[in-house]
């Protein structure tokens, strides 16, 4: 297992380790308060992991404050986990790597596996002594912006990986079933390959083996020999695929396009491919 993944067993043995900060990040922002891994702090992706004024990742000062009050300094090992197969744990992982945090890991299987295994939960919030955190300037080599995606689509110099469901990819639906529609047009970015994020995971929420993952992507012509840009609807599912490609498979040039379909599918004049 790559050293960016830890098991639920490992986490259970390290809940009192002062060098480690366990952090829960959920799609369902109420889940943490229902009960969480002992010692874990909770981060709210809608308010704490983004710029709440403009659409952007968390600003550097806000990140430093969040980490500092979470008891994290630059040497702390951060272990992330969350619901929905770690969607927003991966989102947090991606941003922490952009800001240069060295030791970030994800609990394989996330909240679902922890609960299914009937492991200890608490509603107590940990008493964290504030620390000082100094982040690096964001590493934009991990992030794709619109212009680069347009170039990739036109020139095929980078592989575009659409990690949404097949029905979103074809334009049959505009958002995951049951969620609000957040785009004007359905379909996908011309040239993109459909490799849904769920293919990365086993039924218990853990990631598939590296061999299985290599085979999955190789079967779609994704082998890491050219740049890769992953996208979804708002960038969290694609951060999970980014994590797989960059950190489990070790591909060098992988970017997350967090503008994703909520940008492309609302853009006047943008080319859209169907099915």
């Amino acid at each position, binding site marked *: 297992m790559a050293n960016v993944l830890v098991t639920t067993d490992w986490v259970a043995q390290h809940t009192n380790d002062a060098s480690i900060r366990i952090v829960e990040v959920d*799609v*369902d922002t*109420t889940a943490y308060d*229902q*009960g969480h891994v002992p010692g874990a702090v909770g981060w709210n992706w809608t308010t704490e992991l983004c710029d709440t004024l403009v659409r952007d990742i968390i600003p550097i000062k806000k990140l430093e404050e969040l980490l500092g009050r979470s008891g994290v300094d630059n040497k702390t090992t951060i272990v992330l986990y969350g*619901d*929905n*197969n770690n969607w927003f744990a991966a989102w947090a992982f991606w941003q922490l790597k952009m800001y240069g945090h060295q030791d970030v890991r994800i609990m394989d299987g996330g909240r*679902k596996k922890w*609960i*299914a295994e*009937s*492991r*200890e*939960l*608490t509603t107590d919030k940990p008493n964290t002594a504030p620390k000082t955190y100094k982040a690096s300037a964001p590493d934009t080599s991990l992030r794709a912006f619109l212009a680069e995606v347009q170039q990739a689509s036109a020139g095929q110099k980078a592989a575009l990986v659409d990690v*949404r*469901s*097949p*029905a*979103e990819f*074809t*334009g*049959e*639906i*505009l*958002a*995951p*079933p*049951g*969620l*609000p*529609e957040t785009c004007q047009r*359905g*379909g996908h970015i011309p040239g993109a390959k459909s490799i*849904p*994020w*769920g293919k990365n995971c086993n039924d218990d929420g853990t990631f598939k083996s590296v061999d299985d993952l290599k085979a999955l992507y190789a079967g779609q012509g994704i082998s890491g020999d050219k740049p890769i840009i992953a996208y979804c609807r708002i960038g969290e*599912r694609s951060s999970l695929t980014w994590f797989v490609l960059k950190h489990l498979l070790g591909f060098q040039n992988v970017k997350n396009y967090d503008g994703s379909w909520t940008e492309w599918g609302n853009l006047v004049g943008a080319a859209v491919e*169907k*099915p």
Partner: protein
Amino acid sequence: MKAEGYTKRRQDVGGWAVEIETYQLGDVYYCTINNVDPGARFARAEGSTREEAEAKALEKAGRYLAQTRRFTTG
């Protein structure tokens, strides 16, 4: 405390496949409903019994799914 009675099952709601997860924490039952594809949670509820939590969550799920439109792609 520990989650007890964790169950997971699939069923059809309004023509969409969903996954229903339910467990008990303390005195409260929690139910969350995900669409099977792509696997996003979109409804949840609590209750004092498993049946109550699931019924509430399923009612919400049905209401939300009724608003999901299908388009032709040809």
